[in-house]
């Protein structure tokens, strides 16, 4: 009896392997924790907030012209682009100075509306008022009767003044007046509104965000009038400050989501936000995931649709890319056109995209596992064709696929960087000629060229560029899995991705809703795009305040 039991005790090799089973994950887990603690956005809770600039010591302007001018010259005057234009106000006989940054002004406007007015022949009323320059009455007089400007602001703080000037305002200092006046609005050169290049549509508005925040928010407002569309402004960046606006519908958005977004934004701690991508990376849930957890878009219509679903948009100054949170996997495969076209073509395109993204992810891995591991699982006729096609190919399938996949990736990258007229030509040269030549030279099999081409085309059909990149990265991982364990490895790879995205959350919303947690209501807008009349409710996953879309 005992000998029988003993005979079933595995040998030391098995125990060694068991040790490895434990050891390797432990090491990896340790390494992962290390990396993730390095990578993750460790913020001391709400240390640096928007209040950051108000906490700086407040220093009022002295009201003495010389001293204030001196101060300005010292703080910002060292820059060559800050201009000081000193002159005398004829009517008052006081010194005045216009301070502005080169290139951010309409010079004509300043000439005709400020300089000309102030240097004109004296106006008796002004002279009378001018006796008490430091009284509010004088300022009021100046505003009401003298300067023909819409926008005049008084600034008393030194810091505020310098910052306003740097933003592009023109400041007017008057000898004896205790505050400065901002007389010219910033008018830096901006780009004209153009069609969003990264998200082109056949049907739909041609408007895209620009680099100017106010224009962008205005574009959102222009989508339709609603008193519920609320925008909140934040200032981010410790060294170079930038405005950031959170937009949402206050009756739709879930307050907890809003709170979470606000919280994360106030925790951003970085010297400069160059692009909304910075914000995206600083507020996302899991920086080590290959999937993006924030959607970026150039299209105002996309943003407004997301807002109506109860999401929150983040707009950053200086970039045409707005961010939408939270995002789910299915959103990355949706395009606004799905809704603009009638529902049947829309549904077809949706389903097609799901299929395409599956191909883009798995096709090379499946190819490898069939060619190198499971010749018995492909149809006989196909197997014969492949064998004949692969005669003389010197590489194993993994290397073969890698050669072609990597050259396609390089081509794609190169085509992106090249000037527009050359790009397509480059694609033709690279794609067609290299592919054909590689087959002729016997480096790769023609069958693989088909597989790689299908993969590449499929990955183009994903409407979100950044989602496409994630799939491209994962495709290589999948290839490695397939090259190690064939179909079994491919299945493991698929399960790993499933496990990963099922754990992933974007601002508290599971990444793969509505597949799971299963929400039948939301399935209407997943593989198919149900007729608009049927989509009566907002997505359940967003737990919105106002549920119904149609009354």
């Amino acid at each position, binding site marked *: 009896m005992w000998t029988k039991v003993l005979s079933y005790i595995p040998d030391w090799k098995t125990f060694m392997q068991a040790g490895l089973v434990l050891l390797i994950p432990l090491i990896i887990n340790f390494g992962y924790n290390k990396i993730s603690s390095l990578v993750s956005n460790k913020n001391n809770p709400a240390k640096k907030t928007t209040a950051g600039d108000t906490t700086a010591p407040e220093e009022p302007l002295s009201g003495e012209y010389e001293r204030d001018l001196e101060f300005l010259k010292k703080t910002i005057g060292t820059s060559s682009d800050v201009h000081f234009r000193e002159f005398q106000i004829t009517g008052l006989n006081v010194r005045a100075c216009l301070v502005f940054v080169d290139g951010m002004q309409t010079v004509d406007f300043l000439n005709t509306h400020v300089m000309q007015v102030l240097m004109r022949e004296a106006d008796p009323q002004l002279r009378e008022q001018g006796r008490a320059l430091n009284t509010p009455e004088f300022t009021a007089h100046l505003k009401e009767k003298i300067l023909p400007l819409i926008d005049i602001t008084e600034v008393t703080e030194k810091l505020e003044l310098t910052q306003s000037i740097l933003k592009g305002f023109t400041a007017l200092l008057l000898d004896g007046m205790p505050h400065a006046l901002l007389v010219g609005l910033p008018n830096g050169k901006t780009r004209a509104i153009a069609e969003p290049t990264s998200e082109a549509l056949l049907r739909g508005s041609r408007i895209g965000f620009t680099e100017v925040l106010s224009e962008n928010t205005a574009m959102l407002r222009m989508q339709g009038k609603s008193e519920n569309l609320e925008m909140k402004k934040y200032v981010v960046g410790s060294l170079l400050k930038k405005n950031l606006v959170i937009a949402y519908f206050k009756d739709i958005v879930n307050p907890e989501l809003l709170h979470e977004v606000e919280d994360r934004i106030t925790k951003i701690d970085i010297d400069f936000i160059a692009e909304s991508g910075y914000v995206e990376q600083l507020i996302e849930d899991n920086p080590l995931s290959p999937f993006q957890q924030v959607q970026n878009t150039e299209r105002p219509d996309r943003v407004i649709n997301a807002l109506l679903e109860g999401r929150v948009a983040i707009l950053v100054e200086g970039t045409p890319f707005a961010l939408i949170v939270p995002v789910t996997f299915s959103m990355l495969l949706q395009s606004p056109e799905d809704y603009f076209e009638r529902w049947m073509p829309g549904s077809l395109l949706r389903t097609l995209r799901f299929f395409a993204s599956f191909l883009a992810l798995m096709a090379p891995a499946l190819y490898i596992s069939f060619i190198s591991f499971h*010749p018995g699982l492909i149809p006989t006729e196909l197997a014969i064709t492949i064998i004949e096609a692969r005669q003389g190919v010197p590489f194993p399938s993994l290397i073969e696929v890698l050669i072609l996949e990597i050259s396609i990736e390089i081509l794609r990258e190169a085509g992106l960087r090249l000037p527009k007229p050359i790009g397509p030509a480059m694609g033709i040269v690279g794609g067609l000629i290299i592919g054909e030549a590689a087959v002729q030279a016997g480096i790769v099999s023609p069958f693989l060229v088909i597989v790689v081409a299908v993969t590449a085309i499929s990955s183009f059909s994903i409407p979100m560029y950044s989602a496409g990149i994630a799939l491209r990265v994962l495709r290589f991982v999948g290839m490695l899995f397939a090259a190690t364990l064939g179909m079994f490895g491919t299945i493991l790879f698929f399960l790993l991705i499933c496990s990963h995205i099922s754990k992933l959350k974007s601002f508290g919303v599971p990444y793969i809703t509505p597949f799971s947690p299963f929400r039948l209501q939301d399935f209407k807008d997943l593989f198919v795009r149900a007729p608009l009349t049927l989509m009566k409710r907002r997505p359940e996953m967003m737990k919105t305040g106002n549920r119904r879309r149609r009354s």
Partner: protein
Amino acid sequence: MFKRSMRRCCLLIAAMALISGCWSSKEIEDLSMYAGLALDVGDPTPLERELERKGATYDKKNQITATIQIVPAHSSSSNQGDSSTKGKVPEFLNTTETGDSLFEIMRTYSTRRERAVIGHHLKTIVVSNRLLQKRGIDSIMDFVLRDNDIRPSCVVFVTEGRALDTFAKNASGTVPAQQLRDFLRNRFRTNRIMEGVNLTRLDALMRTRQSFVLQNVVAAKGELELSGAGVIKGASGKWIGSLSQTDVESISWIRGDGGGGAIKTYDWRGEPIVYEIESMKSKQKAKITGDDISFHVEIKSEGRFIENWDIREDPSKPKYMEKAEQLFEERLNAMLREFMRKIQTQYKVEVAGFGESLRIQSPKTWKKVKDRWDEVFSEVPVTFDIDLHITDFGSSTK
């Protein structure tokens, strides 16, 4: 939180791939697939004798000769030549080995061909009747049933003569092994082709130890024809004789599973007239009275009057049709009688599915007789009730 990420696993797999390599990875072009397997009584080919004479041999008794048909043929000339000549290159390659164990023979191929053979794409197995006379089908088929590469979907044929002749090159340039399998698709055209017996069915048949038939292949000058069937005696698993093409038709009439075909007979002037089968149905009814078993088979068919050499008759007349029906029924009855005689008195086996009917209709009786069913059946009276119905006379009234 114990989270791991894709990156982790990516690293891990990369490491694994580097350390251990990919165990099962074998490129498809480095393998040969065999589409056909022909089994003969051990008789080395002249080439083998030559090789053996020069010392290429091992310890064996030459019990069996196995020929595999490799597709596509990996002749190095085929990829050097330009594509226009590709069509003329033979698309398959036969390799013959003699030995005792099928598996050993399979492995011996590796010493003769640079690409190892895999069995995933085996389509047909042809066994010669001489081998089946010597050894039971159980032992011959054991390897192919056990092997994990060979799919049970491959179809088994017998041939009278050398099995490897059926794999010879033919004029059309198609692969005989595939051609044989594709013949089975033509069942909708003629009921002389039996339903292919694949390995799963063979397995079941062998376990029940009932007799059965396997489609017979005849080869001549590189051409193949399916003709008749070989009878395998259940008790011994050995080949005991063959059935003609009409017998195969009879089986399909009794089982009622034919897809199409014809009945040709001669009218009162000796001119051929032909009935095209459009549908056939049969019912085998077992009658048990005490220990006596008898069968009554009801055959119903509808079809078309399709060919008439007798120009003096008008087939569109109902009267003629009725007469013709009678003639066809007589012909069919004669066919069936002849068939029953063959299996009940000549071979003393039951291969037409009567046992199956008995099992379903009277499980208890079946249990009693199943072990000696062949003998019992040879005494069982079988009656037929044939009802052919000509529905139309085609697109010509005359």
